[in-house]
């Protein structure tokens, strides 16, 4: 599959910008005193231009010449990244059950309350199938990732332990937990084995957390999660997810303060995924979540300046990285097609395979069963093709949006379940508009490193560095 960037059919030689087959450069007000953005939406190339130099930059000269020489390479790079990667990670639900009843969960309540654990033998059998599949598709020596996910995966502790024992050399393991089940000794087991651990906490205020994350009888889990966070303090392979809703967005600055005080080095401030009605009921308006979200980002920078210790907001760092090195992203929601079904897929507790865990509660997106169908065939089924074929060029207004490759119009599950189809946008368009502008302002002021991991560009090489003007 190719896109408009590489699939040229007009007679134009593409010598001129913004006409014919020439590259497009869209100016973008980024809310900066001195700089405007200039973006080629097809190649995700960008430049920041001093406002009084825009005319000069867009006239024949070294800037346009240097970009023209690289444009085809960048277009091909984006096409490879968007259409040629193969899966290397699996979200694996070892149980359907959860001990919590969170308002915005993307899994149906009946499953979480009365579902089954996958028996340990089946978990091991599934991992063997996955191991063999990845041995046949990934380069030698590459370790795919298995993320035990939920529902609450640690409820099936025995199966997890068996998996780590037998397949610790075959996979990089991670666990996303609600932080209310494991004992200190069990956390020690995970840390000793180097398992990545993600916890979930939505706020520093117990009462606000309990509005959306609570036990089935409505009780608080706040103290247990905070205890787990304290136990994991200093563990490098650990992060915390805060799901941002209309209930907690007002507290985002205080939340990042709390995370930083608790020694968290990476968090995610994920806007609630509106796949199910329970989440849509507490969906904040774009402009509201955006205001609080950007204030929280501001606060993380202040904390870094004050303490010399970062709290990286991974989902924002991913936007920054998408701008500076599109292929170096760590998260694959913010590109189209998204990572669902193409860089990762999800396995439910009965072995059914879905493009992403967001789809596990939507039977129409079941591509087959791990125990009965070949993975390669599952990835080519119509439900998977619906997701892996969803691209911004087919969505309005994304097809004319300058930041479409820094956003990706997430998420297909929301587009399908909330907005009526795969050719619709996801839930938080304006939040992405604001994040990209914020990121570009940081780059303009050379402040972006405060928002990134030290080694974010370790495996990259510089392919464009303007040396004119």
């Amino acid at each position, binding site marked *: 599959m190719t896109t408009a960037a590489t699939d040229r059919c007009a007679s134009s030689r593409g010598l001129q910008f913004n006409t014919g087959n020439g590259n497009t450069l869209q100016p973008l007000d980024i809310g900066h005193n001195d700089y405007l953005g200039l973006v080629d939406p097809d190649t995700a190339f*960008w430049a*920041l*231009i*001093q406002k009084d*130099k825009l005319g000069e930059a867009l006239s024949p000269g070294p*800037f346009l010449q240097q*970009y023209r020489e*690289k444009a085809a390479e*960048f277009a091909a*790079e984006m096409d*490879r*990244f968007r259409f040629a990667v193969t899966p*290397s*990670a699996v*979200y694996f639900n070892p149980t359907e059950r959860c001990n919590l009843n969170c308002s915005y969960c993307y899994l149906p309540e009946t499953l979480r309350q009365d579902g089954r654990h996958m028996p340990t033998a089946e978990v091991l059998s599934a991992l063997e199938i996955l191991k063999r599949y990845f041995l046949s598709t*990934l380069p030698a020596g*590459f370790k795919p*990732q298995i*993320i035990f996910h939920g529902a609450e995966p640690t409820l099936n502790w025995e199966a997890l332990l068996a998996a780590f024992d037998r397949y610790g050399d075959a996979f*990089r393991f*991670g666990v*996303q937990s609600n932080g209310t089940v494991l004992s200190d000794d069990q956390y020690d087991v995970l840390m000793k084995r*180097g398992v*990545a651990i*993600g916890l979930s906490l939505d706020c520093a205020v117990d009462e606000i957390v309990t509005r959306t994350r609570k036990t089935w009888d409505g009780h608080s889990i706040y103290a247990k999660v905070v205890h787990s966070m304290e136990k994991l303090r200093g563990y*490098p*392979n650990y*992060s915390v*997810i805060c799901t941002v809703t209309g209930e907690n967005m007002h507290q985002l600055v205080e939340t990042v303060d709390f995370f930083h005080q608790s020694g968290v*080095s*990476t968090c*995610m401030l994920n806007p609630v995924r509106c796949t199910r009605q329970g989440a849509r009921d507490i969906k904040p308006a774009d402009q509201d979540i955006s205001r609080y979200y950007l204030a929280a980002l501001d606060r993380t920078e202040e904390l870094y300046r004050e303490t010399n210790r970062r709290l990286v907001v991974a989902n924002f760092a991913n936007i920054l990285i998408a701008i500076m*090195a*599109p*292929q*170096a*992203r*760590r*998260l*694959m*929601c913010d590109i189209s097609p998204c*990572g669902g079904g193409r*860089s*990762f897929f999800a396995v439910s507790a009965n072995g059914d395979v879905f493009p992403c865990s*967001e789809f596990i509660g939507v039977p129409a997106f079941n591509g087959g069963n791990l125990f009965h169908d070949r993975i390669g065939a599952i990835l080519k089924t119509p439900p998977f093709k619906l997701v892996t074929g969803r691209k911004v060029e087919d969505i309005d207004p994304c097809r004319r949006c300058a930041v479409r490759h820094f956003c990706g119009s997430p998420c297909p599950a929301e587009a399908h379940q909330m907005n009526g189809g795969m050719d619709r946008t996801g839930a938080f368009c304006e939040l992405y508009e604001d994040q990209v502008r914020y990121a570009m302002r940081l780059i*303009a002021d050379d402040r972006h*490193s405060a928002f*990134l991991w*030290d*080694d974010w*560009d370790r*495996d*990259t*090489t*510089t*392919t*464009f*560095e*303007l040396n004119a*003007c």
Partner: protein
Amino acid sequence: MKTTKRSDAKRPIIATRKSCNPNGTGLSHYVMMDSKK
């Protein structure tokens, strides 16, 4: 991070891009903190 601090004088144009092998990229709503490969 392999970036150089810019001088106080603002550059008329800022434009950089880095590339890498995209294989092994990415999850969705979860981030693994150890190395990518």
